[in-house]
């Protein structure tokens, strides 16, 4: 029983770490094919990481601990989130700690660490990127909190495992107005949090338009590898969380090895499908003007707020 739970946590973290670059590779490949290009293949991000990890570590003159710690902190917080969130199983030794507020705080910690690192470099781009990232984060974090909060009202708990198992046992909840609104709000927030179109363009080379990339311009070698891996892991975890909350079927609610194995396969499939859908949608989107981004995020916040309201009234409590 305990062993299966531990195995589930381990499997979640390993799957996220190993699969995140493949997810990024799949998304790039989908985009390339839709644009009529051959594309570099699904494992290209792993090749890039291998190349970067072999390079010599270089830090710019004048940077302090904030710059050096940030990549590690980013990867570590995301790995902890990957362990906590019920991606494959709701019965794990840590499921009691899988609190929604803790998860959002951990994600925010990673964002803030990178922003501080951007400021630490003292370059105009670091500062500019950090300022933009914080503007976006300040609008995104409340939306994520509120959206998941709306989902937590029927369960009466902010524990993610409880919310997800509630969804499995009572699927009507997911299709309720509150559930759908919350899922929509969460989806927009995930786009912004992971720096995808239409908020940020992950494939741009134009340094002045960058948000996330501007912040990490000074990183090189193994540090850059960690930053890239961290960003890819965040995308994988957030898409996984979105899948767990909106389509929780298949997630193991009992401690059986077969259920866990099925859950892991389904998780991979769901995240790959979501990622591919996102990549396909991105082909048809363009990047919003920076000053329109708050409007988009305010809209998603409003959806989350409506979800909470609807959840409150429709459950009649």
């Amino acid at each position, binding site marked *: 029983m305990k062993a299966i739970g531990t195995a589930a946590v381990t499997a979640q973290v390993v799957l996220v770490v190993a699969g995140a670059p493949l997810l990024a590779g799949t998304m790039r490949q989908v*985009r390339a094919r*839709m*644009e*009529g*290009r051959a594309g570099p293949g699904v494992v290209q991000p792993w090749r890039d990481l291998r190349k970067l990890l072999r390079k010599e570590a270089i830090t710019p003159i004048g940077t302090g601990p904030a710059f050096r710690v940030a990549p590690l902190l980013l990867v570590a917080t995301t790995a902890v989130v990957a362990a906590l969130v019920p991606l494959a199983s709701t019965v794990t030794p840590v499921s009691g700690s899988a609190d929604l507020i803790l998860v959002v705080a951990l994600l925010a910690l990673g964002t803030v660490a990178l922003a501080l690192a951007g400021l630490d470099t003292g370059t*105009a*781009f670091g*500062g*500019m990127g950090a300022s933009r990232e914080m503007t976006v984060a300040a609008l995104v974090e409340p939306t994520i909190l509120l959206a998941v909060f709306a989902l937590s009202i029927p369960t009466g708990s902010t524990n993610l495992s409880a919310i997800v198992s509630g969804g499995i046992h009572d699927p009507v909840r997911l299709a309720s107005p509150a559930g759908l609104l919350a899922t929509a709000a969460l989806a927009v927030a995930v786009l912004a949090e992971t720096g995808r*179109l*239409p908020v940020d*363009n992950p*494939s*741009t*080379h*134009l*340094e*002045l*338009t960058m948000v996330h990339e501007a912040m990490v311009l000074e990183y090189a070698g193994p540090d850059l590898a960690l930053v890239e891996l961290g960003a890819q892991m965040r995308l994988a975890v957030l898409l996984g969380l979105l899948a767990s909350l909106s389509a929780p079927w298949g997630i193991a609610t009992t401690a059986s090895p077969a259920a866990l194995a099925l859950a892991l396969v389904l998780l991979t499939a769901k995240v790959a499908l979501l990622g591919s859908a996102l990549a396909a949608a991105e*082909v*048809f*989107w*363009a*990047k*919003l*003007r*920076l*000053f*329109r981004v708050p409007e988009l995020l305010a809209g998603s916040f409003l959806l989350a707020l409506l979800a909470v309201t609807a959840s409150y009234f429709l459950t009649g409590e």
Partner: protein
Amino acid sequence: MPRTVTDIGPDELPERAADLLVDGHRLALVAAHHDGPSAPGGPAVRVVYLFASGPPDTRTELHVRLDPKAPELPTLAHLSFPAGRFEREMRDLHGIVPLDHPLPHRLVRHFHWPRGWYPMHPDAGPPPPFAEQEGPYPFLEVEGEGVYEIPVGPVHAGLIEPGHFRFSVVGETIIKLKARLWFVHKGIEKLMEGRTPDRGLPLAERVSGDTAVGHALAYCLAVEEATGTRVPEDARRARALLLELERLHNHVADLGALCNDVGHGILNARAQHVREQLLRLNQEVTGHRLLRGAVVPGGAALCSVPGTARMRVLGREIGDLVTLALGHTTVRDRFTGTARLDVAAARDLGCLGYVARASGLSADARTRHPFHDYGPALTVPVHTTGDVLARFLVRAEEIDSSLALVEELNERLITGRWVANLAPGRPGATAAGTGIVEGWRGTITTRVELRGRDHTLTRVKTADPSFFNWPALPVALADTIVPDFPLTNKSFNLSYAGNDL
């Protein structure tokens, strides 16, 4: 094309120039010449001001002779902004001092050129090793609450030419932008000296790599005027075709790049697909993807003629592309109202090409200084809003106009090579000529002087439209936000190489 030449003294210059400018002429080019003892007027520094207007095509030159020991000129900067820039260029390259210039800073001068060394001076010799830089050259600091600076370049993240941009920013809004270019001085004007017209052609084609036909044609027209060569009618028609083919492939690439800069990559992929087809067509028509070698002094050559059906298919694809881009709400929102250049600023700065036409000026050398009778097929699209959308639309409409011209020219074009031989010149005699051409980026002006039997080039001066348009970029960007700079820059798409010869 009538070209009147008037020799005047330096004191008369401001008055004569003012008269011409009031009369509707624009300053097309200023070129300095170091005349030796064998020159007709004896040793002197001779500055030529070329004014042009049209239609009818009128070119007026004012020649001012200066003391070669201490060349000094009254400035025209208060009459014409481009004149002030040409004067700074002359001071940096020739050592001619514009008196009372309102902005007496260096322009072309490279940071590390030795003090007192002027590359275009006859005694300059080979380029000396880089020496101590000539004093500090600080940027103007914008002071105030919350103002910070963003330095960008000269080396950029993408594969683009070098230029340093210094933004003074509050929040995300640009208060002031200073562009410092001039990192690519190649000495093309100096390299031209002493060449025969045929050997000068490859250099002219490479002034700006994307404008091979435009620069080659301006150069050839100037050489032909100087040598009194009449170009066959077929060659003129072929040249008109080549000029439009160049406009097509560059404008299509720009439409795609503008979409790419707002993150809409799929339209860029499609545009580059169309561009590739156009480049392959260029290869078939001229034997070179960028159309080099087709325009030669005295004529032109075509290996094949683009088929009308094929051009129509490409035209439809480009039309679809424009419709898709303008139908996308986010793309349209990003383009609309971004980086406006109003008509007064465009006129004062002397803007040319699609930048001017997007701001309401209808300047086009194909109507003002035609080398070929285009007939009614030529339309010059003009928009008045001066924003990125207007520059996008002007390009899209110019593509339509170019396709119509190509179709019309196709009817009477055949494959062949039509070149009139340049008549040998009189030994020791000098001659001059000017060429004005509407390249895809705008009006290109080239002036040549040659001497002797084999028409040895003694001086070639080229003014690329980028030289006139660069100062408009910071003006358009005032009060624009920093993340919109790359989009604006692409909508201007100015040449660094053509600007800094």
